[in-house]
């Protein structure tokens, strides 16, 4: 395990990872303080549905009422992106959380016990991995019916095999380590060995990968929402907001960039969110890569 001080110092020294860190902190703040930053109007029942200011089709540019303008159907973009931060985190944390759990359990079982359990679990992951992720997610969502919840289910189904495989690989490597042998020699039961000895060491790289996948999950969820397979119309979700802009990317003749804000702003939010996590992730990988010697 690397010295924590070393890790933090490396993160802060590297301008790229520092930027990532700052971005993530900003988004966390936005998510926590969303009701303060973009208050829900009086009488508006469901905070995650973006309030509408009329029903006109064409998006309106930013003005004092709507800082970022409105989308088609007059949904306030500012409100949408602020509360969208919350939904992004929700989706990401839920998906990653469940994926980690399922992947951990199955991966540990497969790695530790080997034999037929391993074979069966591996064949199952093979089947899942045979599909490109988005297509499988699409199929599942189409089957269950589009909604943000189906997106989460679909993404979990798509993501867990990679984690199971990763954990399994780590445990396989660790299984031969001496301290595992020693534990067994002392009479520890299998479960105990897994939980107390194997997992803590195997979990480290997986946790890192998980935290970095937060960006990837949000990206995938946004893509599904954009395609109309995720959050319902008007829901505060970045992908959903972007899909509104699809018909308005080219404005009337003479003013082709008239509705730039409808596309650009939600997209920028997604971009910076994912960028933050990826920058951090890249830096993490450099630090924890055993092959790259510590200077």
């Amino acid at each position: 395990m690397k010295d924590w001080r070393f890790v933090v110092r490396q993160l802060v020294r590297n301008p790229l990872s520092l930027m990532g860190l700052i971005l993530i902190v900003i988004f966390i703040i936005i998510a926590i303080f969303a009701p303060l930053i973009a208050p829900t109007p009086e009488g508006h029942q469901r905070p995650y549905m973006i309030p509408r200011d009329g029903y006109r089709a064409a998006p309106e540019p930013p003005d004092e009422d709507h800082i970022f303008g409105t989308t088609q159907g007059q949904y306030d973009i500012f409100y949408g992106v602020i509360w969208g931060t919350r939904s992004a985190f929700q989706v990401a944390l839920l998906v990653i959380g469940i994926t980690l759990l399922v992947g951990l359990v199955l991966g540990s079982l497969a790695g530790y016990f080997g034999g037929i359990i391993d074979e069966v679990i591996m064949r199952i992951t093979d089947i899942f991995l045979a599909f490109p992720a988005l297509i499988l997610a699409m199929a599942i969502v189409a089957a269950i019916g589009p909604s943000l919840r189906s997106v989460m289910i679909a993404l979990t189904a798509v993501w867990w095999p990679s984690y199971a495989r990763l954990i399994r690989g780590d445990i396989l490597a660790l299984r031969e380590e001496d301290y595992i042998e020693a534990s067994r020699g002392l009479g520890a039961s299998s479960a105990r060995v897994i939980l107390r000895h194997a997992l803590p060491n195997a979990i480290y790289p997986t946790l890192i990968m998980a935290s970095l996948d937060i960006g990837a999950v949000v990206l995938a969820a946004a893509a599904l929402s954009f395609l109309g397979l995720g959050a319902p119309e008007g829901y505060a979700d970045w992908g959903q907001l972007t899909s509104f802009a699809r018909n308005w990317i080219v404005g009337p003749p003479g003013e082709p960039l008239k509705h730039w804000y409808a596309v650009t702003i939600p997209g920028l939010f997604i971009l910076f969110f994912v960028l933050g996590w990826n920058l951090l992730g890249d830096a993490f990988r450099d630090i924890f890569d055993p092959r790259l010697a510590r200077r």
Partner: protein
Amino acid sequence: MELRAYIIRRLLLLVPVLLGVTLFIFGITMLFTPTQRAMLYVRDVKQLADMPAVIERYGLDRPFVVQYGNWLGQVFQGNLGYSKVVSQPVTDAIFQFLPATVELAIFATPLIILLGVVFGTTAAAHKDKPLDHGTRVVAILGWSLPTFWLGLILLMIFYGFLTGFLPPGRLSVQMDLLVNAAPFIRYTHINTIDAILNLNGAVLLEALRHLVLPVVTLTVVQMAFIMRLMRSSMLESLGKGYVLTARAKGLSERVVIRKHARRNALIPVITVSGYVFAGLANGVVITETIFNFKGIGWWAWQAAINLDIPSVLGFALFNAFLFVLVNLVVDVLYTRVDPRVRLGQAVQ
């Protein structure tokens, strides 16, 4: 192990995985009503009129195993059902829309690998210096971009702002008519190749013009992934003994990097190229949708939106099959590239 024997063995091992895939897909379909599921068996338009007959005939109210068997039988006969969004059998739809996607892949894949390798090598050779940070920022940015958003922005700028410079779709309407009528012969249905074979420069130019944006969109996102892998692979390679030996022999740094380090660093990248393909399969759905590029990705999306189950499943099945095949090719390629690995050894 001999090459032919190995390929046969791998193809045989494919069978249980594919069976599992089909089982899985079929399992999903059980979530639907019999009428919806009946669409999986319909072969032509006439049958649509008489759904109860279809249900009867294929025993869609019978136990799961029986249905699975029936369906599998259908699949082996080449019947993947009927696609309502494009009003033709699924198998026909696949063949119709595939060339467009292949065209995208032909242009995107070499670009992705080339750019990824070049950027990765550069970043590794100048580790921690500005060039390293610079290329990494570009790569990470590329990887963080939502594909659909990039596509929209590109359209906004190059199509909207620059009025029609790089338009969406495969061809303009006039060109489309030209291409589908005599004397233009459709060899492959891939516009660029057909244009070359027909020695028609105008069509070629037009096709290329329409290809630029979707290819760029696809490339940017995937390239970053390769670049990062190449960088870490190069860094590992540069730390190895044979690199020091090469320097001690008096070779110039450029030769050391290109000839000795990079050759070894490319090995893991090649194994990953199977995943590049999968990534393309993902990206293609979004890209084709945004640019109205009528390939199988576009078709899949139309199907998903309209709950056209046979199409979605047919697409998923097709993809899975292709993916497994590509992995086989990559495995064989791997043995060619790394003299230490013999056929039959696991890919690391």
